[in-house]
């Protein structure tokens, strides 16, 4: 072996003289964009899903029947909704778990399955009414339900199952844009603004039973269990960090306020037209749209229809998600918007089944939407007190929430909200069942 082995230079080189362009890697553009989009999120989506077909029907009925008289209650309802939504967001951030998950862990399997079943029944009912709403809104242009509903169903399914959580959330935020149609429709209806102002500031009560039923229905449709369930699970899925809690809470409150402003504009729009012209009875949101036409013109009808479409699409997408979250959480299955079937079979199957069932029922000609909604309201009325009680109890638990537990004024306000809302919704159950 005469070959001389040269010394091996084992050099693990480092790029010490690389150009020091520190700022490039640390580009903050992405961060800022993220922060901006972050302002719009689950809080807005959850609360606004409440302005769905059933909600719009209720608000229109309130406006047609009593004009602006019930507007003052919207202030109280907004405060209640904001408190409840804020607690749900806070629990999601702090515990990193959905409401159904926490109920299962803290109160056991029976409560959790009972609540889950109620959610399932109520949400399927609401989901059907929202597909009916989609059909009715598109129907204003003459397109038959058998065309519009399947297209909407497939579209919603694709958004939820094929996209990611982020992409789905962005689409849902787009769905809320048609809500701006209602303020415009209200302005076109030329309300007398000073009467509106007085109705907001001065509480006014009738003693008739219809008045009380509508009052309770108003509260019941604005504060619905799935809103809190969706919000908390979505906050968890979003992975909001604890230092972002204040922003998330602000968003939850802002979402509640925006949703109820929209609802109030619906009352104002119908109050200024239908009520003033003596049309006191409407049976659906689409009726309300059609009824606006002679008084506020074609634009008002079209705007009302656009708002109804956006709202129904949003709710028809949120309800299957909220339901799938609840079932997966309480039974311990994998979950996540945008998960493929093989990753989270139960979650995806629930969403698929719910969309198919609701769309199918909504296409049946002459489906009794009103009696369906009444049934749903009963189940929701039973569920809401349980739901709110859990939220209140869990949010003040030292063990779960530590320093972030609700205390003092917030806890007191939450307790009052839970008590009043529960009384109202149980009242609605009694009234509905006794057929007043």
């Amino acid at each position, binding site marked *: 072996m005469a*070959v001389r*082995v*040269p010394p*091996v*230079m*084992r*050099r*693990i*080189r*480092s*790029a*010490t*003289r*690389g*150009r*020091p*362009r*520190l700022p*490039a*890697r*640390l580009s903050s553009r992405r961060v800022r964009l*993220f922060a901006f989009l972050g302002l719009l999120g689950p809080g807005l989506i959850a609360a606004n899903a409440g302005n769905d077909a059933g909600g719009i029907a209720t608000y229109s009925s309130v406006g047609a029947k009593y004009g602006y008289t019930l507007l003052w209650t919207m202030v109280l309802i907004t405060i209640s909704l904001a408190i409840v939504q804020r607690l749900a967001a806070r629990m999601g951030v702090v*515990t*990193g*778990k959905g409401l159904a998950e926490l109920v*299962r*862990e803290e109160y*056991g*399997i*029976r409560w*959790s*399955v009972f609540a889950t079943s109620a959610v399932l029944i109520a949400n399927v009912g609401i989901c059907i009414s929202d597909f009916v709403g989609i059909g009715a809104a598109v129907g204003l242009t003459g397109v038959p339900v058998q065309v519009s509903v399947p297209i909407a169903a497939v579209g919603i399914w694709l958004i939820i199952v*094929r*996209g*990611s*959580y*982020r*992409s789905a959330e962005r689409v849902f935020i787009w769905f809320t844009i048609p809500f701006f149609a209602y303020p415009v429709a209200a302005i076109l209806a030329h309300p007398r603004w000073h009467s509106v102002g007085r109705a907001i500031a001065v509480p006014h009560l009738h003693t008739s039973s219809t008045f009380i039923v509508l009052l309770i229905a108003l509260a019941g449709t604005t504060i619905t269990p799935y809103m809190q369930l969706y919000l908390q699970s979505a906050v*968890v*899925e*979003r*992975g909001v*960090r*604890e*230092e972002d809690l204040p922003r998330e809470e602000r968003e939850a409150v802002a979402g509640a306020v925006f949703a109820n402003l929209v609802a109030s504009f619906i009352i104002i729009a119908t109050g200024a037209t239908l009520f003033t012209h003596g049309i006191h009875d409407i049976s659906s949101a689409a009726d309300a749209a059609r009824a606006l036409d002679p008084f506020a013109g074609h634009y008002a009808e079209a705007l009302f229809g656009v708002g109804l479409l956006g709202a129904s699409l949003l709710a028809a997408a949120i309800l299957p998600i909220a339901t799938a979250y609840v079932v997966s959480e309480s*039974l*311990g299955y*994998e979950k*996540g*918007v*945008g*998960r493929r079937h093989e*990753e989270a079979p139960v979650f995806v199957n629930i969403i698929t089944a719910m969309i198919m069932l609701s769309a199918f029922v909504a296409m049946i000609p002459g489906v009794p939407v009103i009696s369906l909604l009444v049934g749903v309201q009963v189940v929701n009325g039973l569920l809401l007190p349980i739901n709110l009680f859990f939220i209140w109890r869990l949010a003040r638990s030292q*063990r779960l929430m530590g320093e972030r537990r609700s205390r003092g004024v917030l806890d007191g306000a939450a307790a009052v909200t839970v008590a009043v809302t529960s009384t109202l919704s149980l009242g609605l159950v009694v009234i509905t069942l006794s057929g007043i």
Partner: protein
Amino acid sequence: MSSVNAPATQAPPILHLSAVVGSPLRDADGERLGKVEDLIVRLGGVGYPPITGFLVNVAGRTSYLGVERVSDIGGDGVVLRKAKLDLRRFERRPEEVLLRRDLLDRQLINVEGARLVRANEIELALVAGSWRVVGVDTGPRGGLRRLLPKGLGAHIATGEFLDWAGVEPFVGHVPTVRLRVPHPKLAKLHPAQIADLVEAASRREGEEIIQAVGDDDRELEADVFEELDDHHQQEFLEDRSDARVAQILSRMAPDDAADIVGELEEDRREPVLALLPVSQRVKVRALLGYDPAQAGGLMSPEYVALDGSTSAGDALDAVRRSEIAPELLTTVFVTSSDGSLEGSVAVTALVRADQDERLQSLVKHETPCLSPDADFEEVARQMADYNLTSIPVADEHRMVGVVTVDDVLEAMLPRGWRRRFGLLGED
């Protein structure tokens, strides 16, 4: 203790936790004294965890009953050994958890399947002379049994359940005693699987997993951090001191460490960098100078570069002795004394070549090379065109790093595909 680990199939009949909780406490004569509220179990040992006592409710008061005072446990109650009832106040000893309150209905790690499951039922059996937890039912049977009224539920047969050897409970929520139960079974998982678990778990549970992993294997902890998505990396790093962050970063590949430093809050970057070991600090700092969306940001500064006069045998020896990650060792680069890149030789070519042959004669083609500001597409195109698994990056001929195929794949994966690694992966 080998018999403790005997498979569940050979174990005596299975007793369900839900059948015992709520059942009566009886004295030796069968007289009913009270009610069983919970079972206490000691974790942390080897094998199936033994039951150490009970919480019983006698005359409206909850007290502790040691397992040594009990002669039998069954569906129709817990029977005392002596006639005399001796109750004490329950004080949690270290490593003790309550089965119903702390484990039932909560999440566990199914280590075999590397996923999170929920305990619908906890299964007990008499193993090696004492009552122990032998498994967890995560299926519908366990849940249904507890849902139905007791009489009906008892008819539901024991389904398949996960053997305790294959699950790890979360204990972070257990009050008073901050358990430091090690999770030895987790170490069997791939760091990417552990990262998936952390991402699927809630923040606290994720923290528990990472801490358990980090307590007995710092190396594994760093690997898990590399696999976490940006969002979770930041979340867990925020809670750690600068020193701890530096400790983790020092064990990571420099390009991954640089990515993490780039994501840290502005005012923490310098202190953390200052705490890194010199060699790692130099590499990370250099990488921070590049745009993460370009070849410079993708590359690793670690590679084997040798003089053209080196023989194949010596080159292989250099690869053998190198401590850098295997994916960076598929190619040996040939550089001149001033550091300019002259070519590359695949390790397979070195293996096949005559061991005395010089590297410069093994360099066949002109080696493709990227500038640090080449974008993703350019990197991917070059690697695809030349069938490369790694490609050198040179700044004006001077070699500064290597981009490997795994980095490119990660950057080029379509949005939806990356979702598996975390829901926020696409952002």
